């Protein structure tokens, strides 16, 4: 069983929902990224998503754009992120997922990336601009190495397409809660529950909801019907607001603990 599957199975046993957390690698620097990953896992995060900074992050709002720029400035290339995963892998139990735009993966080469990622202990990969039609061969290379390719579904996804996405995804299905880019928002979008229920018709795998989730109230509400929530911009906001790396680690850990508490029933 993959590390992601194991984690969701144990959450199910304890009747808990998953907290999936996101940060951009190298924001503010790679050393702090290591510390943040470990601190988030210790504070109760169930899945750690590490963002690969990209020059043109079209699916992201201003918060993660700025974070991605800081990551690029501190030299967080895909290669260096893999080195970072190697450093933290044995220090935490939570599965580690890399999230990044297609070009850096392709520039490294799908096969080469997949084998390096498997070797350092990456558990899953999310590529927001790589729908399954285009990603077929890359996803096969990942699966060959035992890495889950986690697909996204959106509010505009048709029923027919939802079926194929839900059947093809590995690890879990990432349901994008709204039409838009990543960003912390005050209110939740409408129709999330219907989207999650539609996905459930076609898969037994967990369905996690992301985009626009930032408060314990959001988490509790979505956790009532989804298997987990993904939080990104709200974490990055705290990293950005901190004046020192230690302060960033403390503030993020506090927030993660608070969010996780809302997902325990």
């Amino acid at each position, binding site marked *: 069983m993959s590390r992601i599957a194991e984690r969701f199975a144990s959450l199910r046993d304890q009747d808990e929902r998953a907290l999936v957390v996101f940060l951009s690698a190298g924001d503010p620097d790679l050393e702090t990224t290591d510390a943040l990953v470990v601190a988030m896992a210790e504070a109760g995060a169930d899945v750690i998503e590490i963002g690969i900074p990209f020059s043109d992050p079209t699916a992201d709002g201003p918060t993660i754009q700025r974070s991605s720029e800081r990551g690029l400035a501190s030299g967080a290339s895909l290669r260096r992120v893999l080195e970072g995963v190697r450093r933290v892998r044995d220090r935490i139990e939570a599965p580690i997922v890399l999230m990044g735009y297609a070009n*850096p993966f392709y520039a490294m080469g799908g096969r080469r990336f997949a084998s390096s990622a498997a070797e350092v202990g990456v558990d899953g990969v999310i590529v927001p601009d*790589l729908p399954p039609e285009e990603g077929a061969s890359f996803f096969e290379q990942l699966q060959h190495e035992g890495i889950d390719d986690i697909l996204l579904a959106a509010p505009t*996804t048709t029923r027919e397409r939802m079926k194929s996405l839900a059947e093809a995804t590995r690890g879990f299905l990432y349901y994008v809660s709204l039409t838009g880019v990543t960003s912390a928002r005050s209110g939740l979008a409408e129709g999330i529950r219907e989207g999650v229920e539609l996905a459930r018709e076609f898969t037994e795998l967990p369905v996690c909801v992301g985009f626009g989730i930032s408060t314990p109230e959001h988490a509790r509400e979505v956790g009532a019907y989804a298997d987990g929530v993904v939080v990104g911009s709200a974490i990055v906001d705290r990293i950005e607001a901190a004046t020192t790396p230690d302060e960033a680690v403390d503030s993020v850990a506090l927030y993660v603990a608070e969010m996780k508490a809302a997902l325990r029933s």
Partner: protein
Amino acid sequence: MAQSVRKGVRSEPDERGCFGEFGGRYVSETLVAALDELLEATEKIVPSEAFRAQLDELLSSYAGRPTPLSYAERMTEDGRRADPSRGAKVYLKREDLAHTGAHKINNVLGQALLAKAMGKGRVIAETGAGQHGCATATACALLGLDCVVYMGEEDVRRQALNVFRMELLGAQVVAVKSGSRTLKDAINEAMRDWVTNVRDTYYCIGSVMGPHPYPVLVRNFQRVIGLEAREQVQAVEGRLPDAVVACVGGGSNAMGIFHPFVEDDGVRLVGVEPGGEGVHSGRHGATISAGVPGIFHGKRTLVLSDDDGQIFPAHSISAGLDYPGVGPEHAYLRAIGRADYVVADDGEALDAFQYLSKTEGIIPALESAHAIAYTRKLAREMGRDEIIVVSLSGRGDKDVDEVRQILGGSG
């Protein structure tokens, strides 16, 4: 349109929108449904008689088509001076005479009509120097559509006059403050708007790029350049040209003039890329000549990217060629050897800008000046009885002030 089998050239993409290994749809899941909707519209609405009739009427009575094909007599004679046995005859396809001063209007009239037919009341666009933005604002004013144009903050500053033009035409201009604050970032921001307002917004892309079906949609609206040129050159010369030359940034004027000739083996197709300060300087926009395969702005194509897969900004004296990617069909035509891609640098373009002004009484856009620069060289190498058709994609009025500053002219 029939699929060409000649020389194995593919003149239409496969069902996934790929020309060979280039093209496709690399977009977030949210946009997949919108692209399906657009694809359906391009297959059902665009070929319909009613749509064609409306577009043809606008192209002739509003945009001023057909544009003339002018024989560049003095330029031709100049090319024969050194060696009178050589020097091809040069014809200019005068897109500079179309409304708004460039070929951009062909595409935006088509897409704005399509937006309207699809029931989308809001149109968004990206712009670099402002040419596509002004053209889109024009078409939206004409058809009564709301228009929002994304433009990098750096470009807003450099092209203040075009910002005012767009506002005069009723568009809202949004200055983009992220990344390099130029065209590629304006596209990023337009894509973010589209993903947010996808249900009621039409994204009017300005070149033969983006995810499928945009590269084909834009090309088909620009094909009118090549279709007219083909007919016009045959009318005066009784035969097809030996070469067709056009500048390539994203590549829409080039694809528009190339496409009707793609199946004619005897017609050499030459795209001229911006060499900027020189391809080896790192400051250029020669994506085909010096780029690598990559995934950028929704398609797989040739891009300017570092070893880590990060896209780096292009550079050219002409803002309209300043893009670190290129239309996937160009990447394909290059890969199969059907078209050649060469480079003209900033200095050569600047010379050609002045040359055409003095020799033919036509001030070309700096973009088009790249095509003129290469044509001068090419004509001298070709025989006297050979013919070159050059796409004069736009007029240079917009560049006069910048060139004046570079040359330090009076005034």
